[in-house]
């Protein structure tokens, strides 16, 4: 909402206040502004008269002598409309225009002491420019006074504030509303609006009727005026419209806009002679057609409200009039409509068709008293500035049953909510300044809310009024006096992130929304994905189930910038639909590729790197010795079938890991995803101290030559069983495949550590167990011990 200082000054004297002061004071009471300042941001401009024009050979330029009263200036001008006798805008040297500063200069060898300007050069928005304005320098009327300040002469010596109003304050979308608000701040009273007009001896009732056939209109007023003289608006109307951001058209159209700006009530003027004798307000029919003022054919739905005559729709209520009844230069008789339509319906229609100054006001809700005021104000102005004759009587449909709102406001409640000690007289003074009627009682006030304040309906609303005028900054802050309680957060989730960070991984946060083409990738789970009703793009139309597609995309993105060493993880939700219910599960995904062991550049991350990371994490979380890795048939096709597995905890799968299938990705990229909800359902093992044996350990090495397909895990299981409780630790220190043994065999070398918690072991005791282990393994796998 643009507030013109000149416009609001018609109703409240703010002449002694700077525009910045007004803007800041309004912000302080809750009406934030976006920008403020002079309407025209230019200086040092004068009205000048062209005394002579001389063509400069071989150019389009002219050498002019221009009279600005104090002196006569030589100015070079290229405008096609420059001519002797023309009064125009002269920017003197030193003038600051939006395009830069004007300086004395020499053009084609001729001195130029300024510039002759068009309105566009003053920074006036394009929409206010006539075709003449766009082509050449400004042409003042002959009565313009040479030497006068040009901005004053244009009537644009105004200042404006652009407010960003909150959606509850529809009342401020009017000059009067602004005047009341400013009046409350500065303790000044608002002047009355002039609503006087005379009526002729001819009644509208005999020639016109209305029928309201919808529940979405509860107030509809119409008056008729005849014999209007369509012409240019008086300057004050044009200037106030321009300052308010509305383009002047002709006196009649301008008056409808002017009154809307003053009162906040949108109006519509019909050419009465193109209208039948009845107006019907009804819901539009499905697929009903209407050509709106802008010449566009609109196809309507039953959600829209139309104004129609007996045969067809002539306007889209609250949004835009119809082309067939538009007020044109030859219009003589006018039907004025002032009505209130259902805000929800207008909101829907305008969202679909056009957001206008009018629809914006309907959406926020209107004061019925203003509807009456507005139609009278139209008559007043049309009589004064369009020579209108006003028919007596008014068509009136009023099913509006809003009553006066009276709210009890307790002093104690004010102080309890705001946490202040405000005295009663200050509360009364604030409320009165806002135009509330106040009846004082001992502990409370009976407050009657002015009808324009649709936003006030409960005691807390009044407390806010008191608070915002009292000044939120004046409230002395303190800390809540609350019981001491222990705060808490999800430590496990945080520790997982920190552990993975410690293991050298970078955390990512990517988008939940992905493409439906990707949602089934890197998973074999059968699930119903969740799609959006109205996605922003096909790329982001579905909620991800797995985080892996996002991580793979992050890899590809970084790869495209030649960043190939990637170790990343992400924790986030996966979404799906099950039995008509929306589910979300917390997941953890890891991707590694390229260098991980930075000191050994030749050694790239592989399956075992990733396995080491997840083992570290699971051990850290307290799941040590409770998980395993299982070769599975149920691995998604995007994974390498021979370098992938399921991760099993306590017998059930919690995730998958493996290399990306070479046909999917030519780089060696390793992925892992676990379902954290499933993992964390298992309580971690208790963390207890284990006795450190005081007795020395004895180590033995042995290598078995086994068939290649035999897993190390199966051998370890046999060793463990045979080793019993003296076997303290098993580690693999070498795997050999090569020409020293048969091609279908591999050698796995183990280091076995034996220890007794209660005594020093003897060589004989160890050898007994060691031999038992060798016997068990060679027998179980039908293999031999590799010679040293």
């Amino acid at each position, binding site marked *: 909402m643009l507030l013109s200082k000149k416009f609001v000054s018609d109703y409240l004297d703010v002449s002694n206040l700077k525009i910045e002061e007004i803007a800041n004071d309004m912000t302080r009471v809750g009406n*934030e502004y976006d920008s403020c300042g002079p309407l025209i941001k230019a200086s040092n401009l004068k009205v000048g008269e062209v005394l002579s024009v001389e063509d400069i050979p071989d150019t389009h330029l002219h050498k002019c002598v221009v009279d600005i009263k104090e002196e006569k200036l030589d100015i070079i001008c290229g405008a096609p409309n420059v001519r002797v006798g023309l009064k125009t805008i002269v920017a003197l040297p030193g003038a600051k225009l939006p395009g830069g500063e004007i300086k004395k200069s020499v053009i084609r060898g001729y001195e130029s002491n300024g510039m002759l300007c068009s309105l566009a050069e003053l920074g006036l928005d394009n929409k206010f420019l006539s075709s003449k304005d766009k082509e050449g320098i400004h042409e003042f009327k002959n009565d313009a006074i040479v030497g006068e300040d040009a901005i004053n002469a244009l009537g644009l010596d105004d200042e404006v504030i652009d407010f960003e109003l909150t959606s*509850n304050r529809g009342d401020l979308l009017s000059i009067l509303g602004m005047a009341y608000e400013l009046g409350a701040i500065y303790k000044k009273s608002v002047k009355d609006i002039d609503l006087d007009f005379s009526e002729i001896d001819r009644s509208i009732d005999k020639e016109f009727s209305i029928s309201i056939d919808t529940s979405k209109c509860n107030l509809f007023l119409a008056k008729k005026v005849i014999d209007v003289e369509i012409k240019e608006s008086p300057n004050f109307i044009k200037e106030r419209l321009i300052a308010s951001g509305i383009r002047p058209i002709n006196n009649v159209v301008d008056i409808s806009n002017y009154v809307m700006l003053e009162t906040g009530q949108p109006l519509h003027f019909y050419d009465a002679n193109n209208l039948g004798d009845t107006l019907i307000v009804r819901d539009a029919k499905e697929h009903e057609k209407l050509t709106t003022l802008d010449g566009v054919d609109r196809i309507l739905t039953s959600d829209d409200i139309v104004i129609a005559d007996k045969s067809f729709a002539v306007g889209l209520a609250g949004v835009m009039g119809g082309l067939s009844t538009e007020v044109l230069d030859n219009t003589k008789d006018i039907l004025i409509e002032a009505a209130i339509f259902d805000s929800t319906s207008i909101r829907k229609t305008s969202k679909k068709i056009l957001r206008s100054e009018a629809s914006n006001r309907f959406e926020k809700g209107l004061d019925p008293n203003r509807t009456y005021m507005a139609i009278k104000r139209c008559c007043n102005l049309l009589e004064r500035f369009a020579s209108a004759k006003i028919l007596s009587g008014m068509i009136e449909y009023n099913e509006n049953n809003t009553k006066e709102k009276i709210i009890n406001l307790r002093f104690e409640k004010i102080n309890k909510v705001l946490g202040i000690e405000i005295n009663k007289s200050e509360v009364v003074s604030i409320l009165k300044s806002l135009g509330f009627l106040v009846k004082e009682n001992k502990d409370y006030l009976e407050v009657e809310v002015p009808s324009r304040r649709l936003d006030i309906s409960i005691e*807390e609303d009044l407390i806010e009024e008191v608070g915002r005028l009292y000044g939120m900054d004046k409230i002395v802050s303190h*800390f809540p006096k*609350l019981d001491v309680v222990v705060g808490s957060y999800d430590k496990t989730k945080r520790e997982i992130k920190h552990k993975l960070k410690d293991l050298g991984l970078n955390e990512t946060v*990517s988008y939940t*929304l992905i493409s439906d083409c990707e949602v089934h990738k890197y998973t074999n789970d059968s699930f119903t994905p969740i799609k959006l*009703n109205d996605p922003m793009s096909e790329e982001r139309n579905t909620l991800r189930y797995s985080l892996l597609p996002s991580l793979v995309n992050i890899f590809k993105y*970084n790869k495209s910038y030649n960043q190939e060493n990637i170790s990343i993880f992400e924790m986030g939700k996966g979404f799906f639909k099950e039995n008509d219910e929306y589910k979300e599960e917390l997941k953890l995904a890891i991707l590694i590729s390229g260098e991980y062991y*930075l000191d050994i550049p030749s050694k790239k991350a592989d399956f075992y790197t990733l396995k080491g990371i997840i083992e570290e994490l699971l051990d850290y979380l307290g799941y040590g010795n409770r998980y395993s890795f299982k070769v599975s048939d149920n691995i998604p096709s995007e994974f390498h079938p021979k370098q992938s597995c399921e991760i099993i905890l306590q017998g059930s799968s919690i995730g998958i890991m493996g290399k990306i299938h070479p046909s999917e990705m030519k780089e060696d990229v390793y992925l892992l995803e676990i379902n954290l909800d499933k993992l964390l359902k298992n309580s971690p093992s208790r963390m207890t101290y284990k006795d450190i044996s005081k007795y020395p350990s004895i180590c033995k090495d042995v290598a078995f030559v086994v068939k290649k397909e035999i897993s190390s895990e199966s051998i370890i299981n046999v060793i463990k069983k045979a080793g019993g409780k003296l076997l303290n630790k098993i580690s693999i220190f070498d795997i050999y495949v090569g020409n020293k043994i048969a091609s279908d065999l591999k050698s796995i070398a183990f280091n076995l550590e034996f220890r007794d918690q209660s005594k020093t072991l003897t060589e004989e005791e160890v050898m007994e167990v060691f031999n038992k282990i060798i016997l068990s393994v060679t027998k179980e796998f039908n293999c031999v011990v590799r010679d040293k």
Partner: protein
Amino acid sequence: MEENMERENIILKLEEKLESVTTKNDIAQVKAYFLGYDGVVTKMSMKMKEIPNEEKPRFGKLLNEIKNEVVARLDKITLEMEEKELNEKLEKDSIDITLPGRKIKRGSLHPMTRIEEEFEDLFVSMGYQVYTGPEIESDENCFQKLNIPKSHPARDAQDTFYLKDEFEKFLLRSQTSTAQARAMEENKEKGPIRIVCPGKVYRRDEDATHSHQFMQIEGLVIDEGVSMADLKGTLELFCKHILGEKTKVRFRPSFFPFTEPSVEVDVTCFKCGGSGCSLCKNTGWIEVLGAGMVHPNVLEMGGYDSKKYQGFAFGTGMDRFAMFKYNIPDIRTIYGNDIKFLEQFDRKDVD
């Protein structure tokens, strides 16, 4: 006298021998020459038995003196040699300490995680519980129970992602304020609440300062006597803790359907410190939080007696703080996950 001559000869010989010693082996040979089985001193000591008894103490003393002298001289030269050898070894060990250190793989937490943890830690220290709700929400929890009925104009400000075939029924939450509705619903005793809810939210919006997915944190305190002054104290502390003690905080009346009275909280501009710049549009202030006293309708819809309980709520976008704190100009950088971006967050915050 004769023995004294002997002694002088031995010492002279020792000095002569030690002059050409260069290795520990040489020292051992010298030692053997004098003190060994066939050594000069050893041989001399053999004479003891030929010495008359009354002469024996004197001879013994002389012998000891010679022995001690030899040992002392040998020890001294051994020590000197060891020191020399050690110095040579140290010299050999010399390295170029200006070569770079070995790289160790380092990870990093995402800036949004860092901000989230910082916010959580502050509120946890004030007795708040961190509450997380689902990201898919019902229209009821996201809007209706927050006093935003269907078709309320306030819905326009949050262009929402509804799920397919679920218009005005289910959506990706557009604000973490949904936690208010949930926390009140879930509190069966309808007693005091003190929570913060950080999390992802989604809106149909995308440019340099808006991402369709971003992070908010919502706070809610419900108790019998909490007031606007308490809210003010809490948020002033929050802003100063997060943005620095010098930060000035301004409360400005505003409007949110779920709070009454409502305020917006401005802080002195991050960039210019309040003198006015392009970031703050020359106002010197940046809006960082929305807040207010919980609307009685919201309390009642949550099952709370609004005559007994009052509450305050606040909410803010965490991305904005990350952008300020780490000087990130474009929000899309935060969710771009460029490895060169992520790696930069491997360091401690400045306190």
